[in-house]
């Protein structure tokens, strides 16, 4: 059964998503169903990661006689849709399944008073399918299809609280951004298909020549994925979407954003890896985009009064670190000495920051959701003195805030240190911006902590209590992960992050379908 894992990763949540509408009004039942299904996918993704890290790239050809039959009966080009799972894909799959599970657990209490929950959980699992498909596939058109699934499920979830005008607006905005991005992706795929007559990622990557049309395709793919991962200057949709979405969906929506980041890496490291001359330029663009993203994001976060909106701007800012880390690696990809010296570690920092950021930003957004659940407002000026009433939320918030500001011994410190040290080797100016951003991040979270949790207890919050248990469990899981990843970064780095980075660097391995052809 192990060889069917890549297909099961899609089939199981899809099955869950289509069973969910049958529950109709049994909201308790459908919540538990979603928790069970997302829990199963967590186990499957861990098995998949174990398999991939020990056994190398895993190929799954749909509709073939056996899963590894890339070139059937005398064909010299692949003709079937295939999944190609390397360590990077498995790493993203773990993030996606874990966050969907935590999101489903948190939603159990967080949205219990809303209506239409069978659709909510159905969409949650469809969003998971979209992300998993994007990170596991080895086929360009398949990537587009799953990008669409994730985009449509995501925008429906952003607009879930449709009795609020702002939520509908944010949903439409997210829908338009996704539609524009995926149409540009489709156009780029059309360009590549027209020239090379195939849609297989590895096949196109082996034959690519970077003529003018290919450059247009690269530009379109780069722009659209940067747009969907919320890099400055295309970041405008992020604050609206993250603010209005129910807090239980924030974790999977964050991963959906980083699935686009993964696609950006896949395009630059795999699809266009053979282009020696121009790849350094793409790397520089990525690094500078990263610096701009982190700095502009954090400066806009400083002035916010809405707690979730503030955290959403920080999400933009943290994306910059990942772009910077991996961009530094991409700059020196074809320079073996520099790559070994600092490129590989820079990429490890960037990739490690993806999972760290997903964990602590989900934690923070979930504490913001808990504040909203208890107080009914997101305005920081109206809150105060909640630390006594909500001790677990307060501690979770402190862990998350320390992690995002890069304080030891939390997980943000581990990945940020790697990025500082390595980007310094490329250009010290990059590091200066990264560190200033970190300081400003701490400043704005001190503000949130002081105005929401500290201060005298307010009369109107006299009767508030701690949030229900499922929400607490979800927050504690993530807070514990923050601390574990911060205390033992070497274990995570060796088991997950460095294999993922090596999978990106050894693009020749991916191009040959893991040595099958």
């Amino acid at each position, binding site marked *: 059964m192990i060889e*069917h894992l890549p*297909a099961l990763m899609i*089939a199981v949540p*899809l*099955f869950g998503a*289509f*069973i969910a*509408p*049958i529950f109709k009004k049994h909201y308790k039942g459908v919540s538990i169903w979603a928790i069970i299904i997302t829990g199963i996918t967590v186990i499957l993704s861990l098995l998949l990661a174990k398999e991939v890290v020990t056994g190398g790239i895993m190929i*799954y*050809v*749909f*509709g*073939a*006689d*056996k*899963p590894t039959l890339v070139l059937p009966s005398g064909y010299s080009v692949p003709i079937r849709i295939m999944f190609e799972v390397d360590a990077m894909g498995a790493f993203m799959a773990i993030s996606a399944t874990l966050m969907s599970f935590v999101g489903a657990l948190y939603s159990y209490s967080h949205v219990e008073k809303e209506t239409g929950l069978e659709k909510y959980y159905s969409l949650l699992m469809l969003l998971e399918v979209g992300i998993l498909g994007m990170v596991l596939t080895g086929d360009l058109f398949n990537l587009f299809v799953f990008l669409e699934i994730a985009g449509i499920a995501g925008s429906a979830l952003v607009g879930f609280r449709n009795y609020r005008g702002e939520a509908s607006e944010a949903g439409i905005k997210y829908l338009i951004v996704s539609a524009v991005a995926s149409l540009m992706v489709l156009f780029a795929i059309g360009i590549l298909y027209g020239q090379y007559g195939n849609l297989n990622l590895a096949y196109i990557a082996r034959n690519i020549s970077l003529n003018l049309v290919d450059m247009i395709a690269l530009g379109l793919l780069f722009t659209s994925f940067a747009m969907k991962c919320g890099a400055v200057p295309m970041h405008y949709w992020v604050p609206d979407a993250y603010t209005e979405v129910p807090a239980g969906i924030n974790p999977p929506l964050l991963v959906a954003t980083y699935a686009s980041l993964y696609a950006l890496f896949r395009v630059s490291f795999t699809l266009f890896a053979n282009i020696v001359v121009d790849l350094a330029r793409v790397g520089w663009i990525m690094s500078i985009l990263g610096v701009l993203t982190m700095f502009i994001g954090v400066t806009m976060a400083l002035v916010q009064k809405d707690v979730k909106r503030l955290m959403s701007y920080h999400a933009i800012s943290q994306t910059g670190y990942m772009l910077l880390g991996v961009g530094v690696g991409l700059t020196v990809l074809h320079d073996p000495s520099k790559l070994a010296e600092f490129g590989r570690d820079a990429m490890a920092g960037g990739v490690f920051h993806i999972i760290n950021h997903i964990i602590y930003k989900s934690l923070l957004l979930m504490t913001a959701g808990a504040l909203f659940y208890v107080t009914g407002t997101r305005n920081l000026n109206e809150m105060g003195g909640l630390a006594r009433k909500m001790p677990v939320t307060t501690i979770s918030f402190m862990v998350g805030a320390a992690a995002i500001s890069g304080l030891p011994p939390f997980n943000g410190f581990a990945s940020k240190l790697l990025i500082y040290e390595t980007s310094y080797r490329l250009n010290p100016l990059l590091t200066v911006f990264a560190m200033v951003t970190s300081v400003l991040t701490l400043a704005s979270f001190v503000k949130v902590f002081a105005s929401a949790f500290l201060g005298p207890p307010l009369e109107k919050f006299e009767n508030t209590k701690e949030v229900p248990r499922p929400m607490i469990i979800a927050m504690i899981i993530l807070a514990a992960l923050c601390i574990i990843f911060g205390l033992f970064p070497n274990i995570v780095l060796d088991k997950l992050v460095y294999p993922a980075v090596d999978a990106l660097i050894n693009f020749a391995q991916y191009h040959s379908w893991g040595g099958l052809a």
Partner: protein
Amino acid sequence: MTTTIIRTTTKILVPLILVFGSYIILHGHLTPGGGFQGGAVFASGLALLIVANNKEKVKELFNKVPLSQLESIGALGFLGIGALGFMGYTFLKNVIANSGFLFGAPTPKGINPGYLNTGGTLSYLNIFVGTKVLAGLTSIVLIFFLILRRERDEW
């Protein structure tokens, strides 16, 4: 907006459109079209039924039709047919072709008029996709129709 002209035309056209939609779905593996296209044609016939009637009639007509269940059945059927391939092959492997099952007759070689009883898994997938698409599109049209009519009544 129902008039005698629309109602009369609908009476004649709807059966034809529904039959044509089913034809496209069933012949998906032989002729251009398939599950999605046939389902869309079928749903357009149902949409014609919706616009030709007034709100009460539509509610009465569609109250008993399990549209969202049909959608789930379509999707689950697709998944189930795909999962048949887990029996020794891969997901979505065409295990029914040449097995003698319904739609599983061997395809004769050479020029032929097209035999309906071939295609294996493909025909089943077309039917399930068609079910899902016709249910999904019809419920979208239905929701838009009910919302619009309600707003007009409130004015």
